[in-house]
């Protein structure tokens, strides 16, 4: 009898006590910078993790990109190239300490570069460099190439090119922990939650805020709730549709920049439905970009009329007119290409129906975009069936050859020069393994222009190659741009609004520069 009553009383007390302690600690608020991003840290594999830990300022690369989008020295104090364009010398910064107290040496950098060369995956750019040899020369590391390649420093800004302490790796070469050189070191790390603290021996300027907590949350609603509840000081990558709602709460302000990322569709150029550029152009004309940009992304400027956004000042052509929806013209182009409406209203040619399945991710804005594309293509007689799935399933259908059309969210700004990504997607050697800008699409003109660009020795050669690349990509449409992706950072009133840098290439969160509000 007593125990029963005790249990009852205890559970009551427990409930009340936890409620009380929770609200107390919450109100007290100790000064940890709470940052939230829509990406979880899913694995410890460098191909995935390095991007996160560079953004969190834990790990650093030889060369970095400053918030203005320019190359900047990081672990390499300076770099230079020989006159023949074949040997690149990176002078390693002296006195840099890893978080475990060990010193960064040129030899560690050499070993790291050797490991990057072997990685050989498309998400790791350094493996694509034509490196012949890497050697240490005093305080410098010299990278010798087989042929001239202009983008070596750009490639070394890539996420997986972070330099970690030798103690980060297990016997078999896999990463077991992240021990970097950045201004923050990891206290506790997990998939959705990482605790950071300032690293007292950092080679550069100490961060203004010593303690940071990172949350990875995949649900955009949850992120918005956290921002509105004052639980997130910075949301780095707030979904565009949530911007109004979060700002409407009155306690949060949002900074926005257009990124190098495009939301669009890519096609299988070997499929009878999309083998002709005219068909791709018809599809492009059927899309109501302005409507989508306003209704789904809340920003008329998001409507894309070319592949590369304003994040690439040298590449974006501001004089191009917007692509307006033109259903009649789209129908006419398809009719010219031989597509005639069948009895069910769906276009057909030589027994092939213009119908296919498109795999859709479960994020609300992606799903809505897919539904909009489906409805708009239906009006020109193209039937799209939607199936729930993810990018892995899209890639699987690519490898099986069954993909007709897929949605893409390609980032052309993984490094500052878009050609790095374009080479992955379009150059002959790697075509097929990187499908996100089109499958089975080959154009010798584009390939030679890309090769000319990376071997160019003069400004004129570079400019000519660039114009050629842009002309082909924007007319051939292996990937059909729909909307540019806006990067939003919501900033709580606890944080000094002006101190938060915003980075169109999404290289870093630059949290070491953030200051508390006065």
């Amino acid at each position: 009898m007593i125990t029963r009553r005790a249990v009852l009383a205890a559970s009551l007390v427990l409930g009340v006590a936890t409620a009380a302690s929770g609200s107390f600690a919450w109100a007290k608020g100790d000064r940890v910078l709470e940052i939230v991003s829509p990406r979880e840290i899913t694995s410890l594999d460098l191909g995935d993790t390095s991007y996160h830990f560079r953004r969190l300022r834990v790990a650093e690369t030889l060369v970095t990109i400053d918030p203005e989008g320019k190359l900047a020295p990081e672990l390499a104090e300076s770099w230079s190239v020989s006159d023949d364009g074949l040997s690149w010398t990176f002078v390693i910064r002296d006195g840099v300490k890893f978080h475990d107290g060990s010193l960064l040496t040129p030899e560690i950098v050499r070993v790291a570069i050797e490991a990057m060369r072997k990685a050989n995956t498309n998400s790791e750019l350094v493996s694509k460099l034509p490196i012949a040899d890497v050697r240490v020369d005093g305080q410098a590391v010299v990278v010798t190439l087989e042929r001239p390649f202009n983008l070596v420093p750009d490639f070394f800004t890539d996420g997986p090119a972070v330099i970690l302490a030798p103690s980060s790796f297990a016997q078999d070469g896999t990463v077991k922990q992240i021990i970097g050189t950045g201004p923050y070191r990891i206290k506790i790390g997990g998939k959705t939650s990482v605790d950071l603290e300032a690293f007292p021996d950092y080679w550069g300027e100490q961060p203004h805020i010593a303690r940071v907590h990172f949350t990875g949350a995949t649900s955009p609603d949850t992120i918005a709730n956290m921002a509105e509840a004052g639980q997130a000081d910075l949301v780095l990558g707030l979904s565009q549709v949530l911007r109004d709602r979060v700002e409407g709460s009155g306690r949060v302000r949002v900074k926005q920049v257009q990124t190098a990322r495009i939301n669009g569709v890519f096609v299988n150029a070997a499929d009878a439905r999309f083998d002709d550029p005219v068909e791709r152009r018809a599809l492009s004309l059927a899309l109501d970009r302005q409507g989508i940009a306003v209704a789904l992304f809340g920003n008329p400027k998001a409507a894309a009329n070319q592949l590369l956004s304003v994040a690439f000042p040298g590449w974006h052509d501001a004089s191009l007119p917007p692509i307006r929806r033109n259903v009649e013209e789209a129908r006419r182009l398809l009719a010219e290409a031989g597509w005639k409406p069948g009895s069910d209203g769906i276009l057909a040619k030589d027994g092939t129906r213009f119908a296919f399945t498109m795999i859709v991710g479960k994020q609300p804005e992606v799903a809505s975009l897919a539904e909009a594309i489906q409805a708009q293509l239906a009006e020109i007689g193209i039937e799209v069936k939607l199936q729930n799935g993810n990018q892995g399933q899209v890639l699987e259908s690519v490898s099986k050859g069954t993909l007709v059309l897929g949605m893409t969210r390609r980032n052309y700004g993984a490094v500052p020069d878009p050609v790095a990504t374009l080479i992955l997607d379009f150059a002959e050697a790697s075509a097929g393994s990187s499908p996100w800008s089109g499958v089975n699409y080959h154009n010798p003109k584009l390939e030679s222009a890309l090769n000319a660009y990376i071997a160019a020795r003069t400004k004129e050669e570079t400019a000519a190659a660039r114009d050629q690349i842009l002309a082909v990509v924007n007319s051939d449409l292996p990937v059909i741009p729909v909307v540019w992706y806006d990067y939003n950072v919501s900033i709580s009133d606890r944080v000094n609004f002006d101190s938060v840098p915003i980075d169109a290439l999404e290289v870093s969160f630059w949290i070491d520069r953030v200051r508390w509000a006065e």
Partner: protein
Amino acid sequence: MTAPSLDEGAVTRRSRPPLAIVLFGFLPLAAMLLLALLGPLLLTVDPNRQALSAASAPPSAAYRLGADNLGRSIAARVIAGARVSLGIAVAGVIASLVTGLALGFLAAFHAGWIRQVVMRLSDVIIACPGLLFVILISGLLGGGIGPILFGLWMSQWPGFARLTAATTARELATDHVEAARLLGFGRGYIFRAHVLPAITPYLTSLGALTVGANVLTISSVGFLGLGLRPPDAEWGAMIAGTMTFFRTSPHMVLAPAAAILICTLSATLIGEYYSARR
């Protein structure tokens, strides 16, 4: 479920349901079912027709319940969604009910290995979280009506089977059924003449409660983004797709939420009424 009810006598068996149950239970559910059956006839607008210029429009003369984020008529989608949400919920119950009746009756009639297999299998499935089943199957098979229906059926037939087995066992123990068996009447007759009448109120109760629970389950799967394939209108998916705008344009969420509430509430009231009566 087999515990003797002390409520008998409080409500006589043949009494008509009270006005409250008719008003808030049978009428709304019947209206919703009618909506599901006649849906296409009532629709003046295609529920999938988009007008991006009208996106998120509040209720007006053109859009009685407003428009969603793609500029589709919410009224049309709620009506079209009745067929999907309620249709799957009811179909799931019918499939489970038929399976449960057959297996439960067999299990009670044939003590032995059939009984053992059916009962043990039911035990295991009942101990498993049904929602997890539906979520997993939908997730693995890429969503759609089939996987959800299969998941509901998988997790729900044991409830009906157990109820049938218990009632059948009780009926079989009565003198008049014993007599019928001795007189040589077969399984089919005993099932029709004795078991079915005895079990109907229980099944009605469990069935109605399950319809309500199913509407909620389907909406939860929709909320997780694993439910039906877009653009099919389904209430849970409608909420999930527009939840983002809950505080800025609540009309998008409220209409499908109200539909879910009406269906579940009326089904629950009916179920509770019959469960109190037995």
